[in-house]
């Protein structure tokens, strides 16, 4: 049972939670995630630790409301308890002074990117962050990113804010302009796939943080498996970060859709019952 200390909206469907978790707050590093379960019958869903406050004994989660389980979490309020929360899971991001690092995030991938941006900056890198969203009101964490980056490029699909175009256009602008030593990307599988194709062309090493479907998060079930360089890897214990140029993103995208129909039905049902 972990108490929710603070809840705020970043955008209509993206919420920020500060949750009591003293042990995790102490040991977590950039790249780590937790598994969260709301209710006795809830599902275990992975969420990146966006930040932590070891003194206060709390961690921050940024959650996008996409289906039943994230909705159940988003519907909790300050003072409520999360039934189960376990972590920190996964391998911490490999942080070093590479030189110039481009950090590219899209959609809810921006939340997991924040601790990486912070750590990269702290390690002495020149950090250029590219944030992508469909439109202006979906751009999140811009302020926090600016505080930890040398430059922030915002890309929107509809041009309502920043520049118009996809995340790749933002990255390419930098690649054409200066020497980049490392790229980190977090976002939807399809986005990471195109980022990887682009940086491969420019020969820039690239790390992708993957968000596969998980159950236990400890290497016990294999639900999170993907193919990297022709080999099976478990994202929860071997990742979540991998060499983006080796990841089979098409397979990952396919596997993310494993339960699409069931999930859509369940969400419809959840909204209907909540409405009553």
């Amino acid at each position, binding site marked *: 049972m972990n108490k929710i200390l603070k809840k705020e909206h970043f955008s209509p469907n993206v919420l920020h939670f500060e949750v009591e978790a003293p042990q995790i707050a102490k040991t977590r590093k950039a790249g780590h995630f937790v598994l969260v379960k709301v209710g006795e019958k809830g599902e*275990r869903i992975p969420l990146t630790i966006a930040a932590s406050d070891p003194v206060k004994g709390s961690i921050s989660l940024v959650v996008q409301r996409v289906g039943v389980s994230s909705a159940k979490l988003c519907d909790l309020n300050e003072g409520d308890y999360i039934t*189960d929360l376990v972590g920190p899971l996964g391998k911490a991001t490999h942080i070093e002074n590479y030189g110039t690092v481009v950090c590219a995030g899209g959609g809810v991938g921006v939340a997991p990117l924040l601790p990486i941006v912070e750590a990269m900056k702290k390690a002495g890198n020149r950090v250029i962050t590219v944030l992508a969203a469909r439109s202006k009101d979906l751009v999140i964490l811009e302020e926090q990113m600016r505080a930890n980056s040398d430059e922030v490029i915002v890309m929107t699909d509809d041009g309502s804010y920043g520049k118009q175009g996809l995340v790749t256009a933002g990255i390419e602008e930098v690649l054409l302009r200066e020497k980049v030593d490392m790229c980190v990307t977090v976002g939807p599988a399809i986005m990471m796939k195109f980022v990887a194709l682009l940086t491969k062309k420019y020969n820039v090493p690239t790390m992708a943080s993957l968000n596969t479907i998980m159950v236990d998060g400890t290497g016990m079930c294999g639900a999170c498996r993907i193919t990297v360089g022709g080999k099976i890897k478990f994202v929860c214990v071997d990742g979540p970060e991998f060499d983006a140029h080796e990841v089979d993103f098409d*397979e990952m995208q*396919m*596997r993310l859709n*494993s339960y699409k129909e069931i999930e859509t039905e369940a969400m419809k049902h959840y909204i209907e019952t909540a409405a009553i």
Partner: protein
Amino acid sequence: KERADKSRVHMRELPADYRNKNNEEVNCGLTKEEALNEAKRCLDCPAPSCTNGCPVGIDIPQFVKNIERGEILEAAKIIKQTSALPAVCSRVCPQEKQCEAECIYAQKMGKEAVAIGYLERFAADYERESGQMAVPECAPSNGIKVAAVGSGPAGLAFASDMAKRGYSVTVFEALHEIGGVLKYGIPEFRLPNSIIDVEIEMLKKLGVEIVTNCIVGKTITFEDLQAQGYKALFVGSGAGLPRFMNIPGENLIGVMSSNEYLTRINLMGALRDGDTPVLSGKNVAIIGGGNTAMDAVRTAKRLGAEHAMIVYRRSEAEMPARIEEIKHAKEEGVEFMPLHNPIEYIGDEKGRVKQMRLQKMELGEPDASGRRSPVEIPGAIETIDVDTVIVSIGVSPNPLVPSSIKDLSVSKWGTITVNDGMQSSVPTIFAGGDIVRGGATVILAMGDGRRAAAAMDEYLKSC
């Protein structure tokens, strides 16, 4: 003489065409009359061989004698002197390979063994249902803190024994539920959760503290535990890493490990009232022939599979599953495809598995396991329709704990290496169960936990 003429009791079971649609426990247990009668068969051998077959050395003739006399609670007490989880083990032990295999009836008389497992279950269930479960006596608290990693049978048995010796025991469990494989793996129809919960309540009465959602090596390190004053650690973290075959199409949607399938259903309540989804279709193939495969295939049948199939590369005689499991599966309508080995899965346009290609096999010379090895029949390949495939070809030790502790020596299979007292290369760390043996059994895991407790007690006293 007349004792030996009686025939072995048959345990009542739910009818196959009823039970294969629900989750009720298949085996109904013995009535008191049946138990008393069966107990009469035991010859009370002066040098009982049955006891040698029990990995924890339960005093079998003693407890059986007490049942015969009608002293059921006394019988339960005797069993509990050596076994921490009798209601569990009597349900899941492969008795036909252990205690009952060594019974004189089977060994010398060419008859069916005394139904030791059934009697043990009777005594344990009787005690539980009597509401007079004896809380074992504990030595006065010695204030020494010890910890167990994992709440499977190994960790629970360790905790129980250490608590009885007066230690303050904390069990750390990674999952949100207590019980390890007993909860997330073995299904309700074979081992009801309520039975495990009673045992866990008993542990709590002994003063054992259980911390769920805590991964040793991640949430808390070995060094943290030392700093918090834990004097020694028992690792019972199990063999949780599922193996795959690395054949084309194995990552298609609908192909999953038996751990994933059973966890979604048993631990997460998929298709009952849980929010977690599971795929379980009409044509379900389980790859493998062990207990886990049988649990998965019988679960698939219960979830409405028209064809629930066991696909196994050797013949039925080589299957590692318990005989009873195979029999129950067949009665419930499970189809068996021995001497078949998958070589490829084929998906539809959305990536969901729709067919599998099977290589037919024949038996060749015995291999390292002593069983006849499967050999491919050249060109004999068959394609069948499947919409769900459950890969159940074994597990490897979970590397999480071993890799997080410096100087802990592990074998080339990733198991923690220990001495006879279950002590590892780090003197304050003991280990047992599947993390030491690879995939083994509940009773062996429990025995390890108890042995580790005895050895740790000795060790801590000598410090």
